[in-house]
């Protein structure tokens, strides 16, 4: 990545950092983000009670709706979203503009 601020081309997701807190989903003015998650109990040695954690099942951005405002990136409390420079993701159909967690996390490393 160059030193300059990335252009608003694509939003990359780091699924390990996402806690499914839904802040981006609620703040998105275009309603283009959807998050599915479930709760799991994690037992830790020495802890009195098991801890409950949110586990991310699916994270989708619909680029047919996204207006590239970047509010999701600004509001993410865990820096799980970031701009990347790639723009090569056109699609011939509406469904092709919906990018899931696999697509979005690929931008994190391959997005120039």
């Amino acid at each position: 990545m160059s030193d300059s601020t990335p252009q608003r081309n694509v939003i990359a997701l780091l699924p390990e950092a996402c806690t499914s807190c839904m802040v981006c989903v609620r703040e998105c003015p275009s309603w283009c983000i959807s998050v599915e998650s479930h709760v799991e109990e994690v037992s830790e040695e020495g802890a009195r009670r098991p801890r409950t954690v949110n586990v991310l099942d699916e994270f989708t951005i619909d680029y047919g709706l996204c207006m590239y405002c970047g509010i999701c990136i600004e509001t993410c409390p865990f820096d799980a979203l970031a701009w990347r420079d790639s723009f090569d993701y056109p699609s011939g159909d509406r469904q092709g503009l919906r990018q899931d967690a696999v697509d979005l996390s690929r931008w994190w490393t391959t997005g120039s």
Partner: protein
Amino acid sequence: MTQTTAIIDIAADEWVAACTASAARGCDVVDWLTAVDTAESLFVLVHLVDPGSSRSEMLRCELNSERPEIASITSWFPGADWHERETHEMFGIDFLGRSQTNALLIRAGDGLSPLRKTAPLDARVRTPWPGQESATGRRRQKLPPGVRAEWTRDE
């Protein structure tokens, strides 16, 4: 024009006099006229500029939001005509004393004022909000931002 212009608050019955007084001070061209609905209050604003310099004046008048009306300034400022038509159409403000206020975009007679805060956002009411459910499936916030509870009751 980068300088900031102070807002001068005007009473509704002094609207025309205040605008013509601005014109007498040199600001005799309507840059724009519009309204602002803050949910608590409804204002009409006009930005008058002096084309010979960078000077401008911004006049603001608070209106009765139940029955918003104000005198038209088109007799003194023909350039306000289009802006008054648009403001009438978008905010439902009646501009008194002008010949006619033809709608620009909306079909006449449906009584809609789309830029008023009271105008229901139909698409937002009908579209499921992705932010409704939390991770645990609990409903933390029932309505999306900007959607009023009374709009959803008829559904």
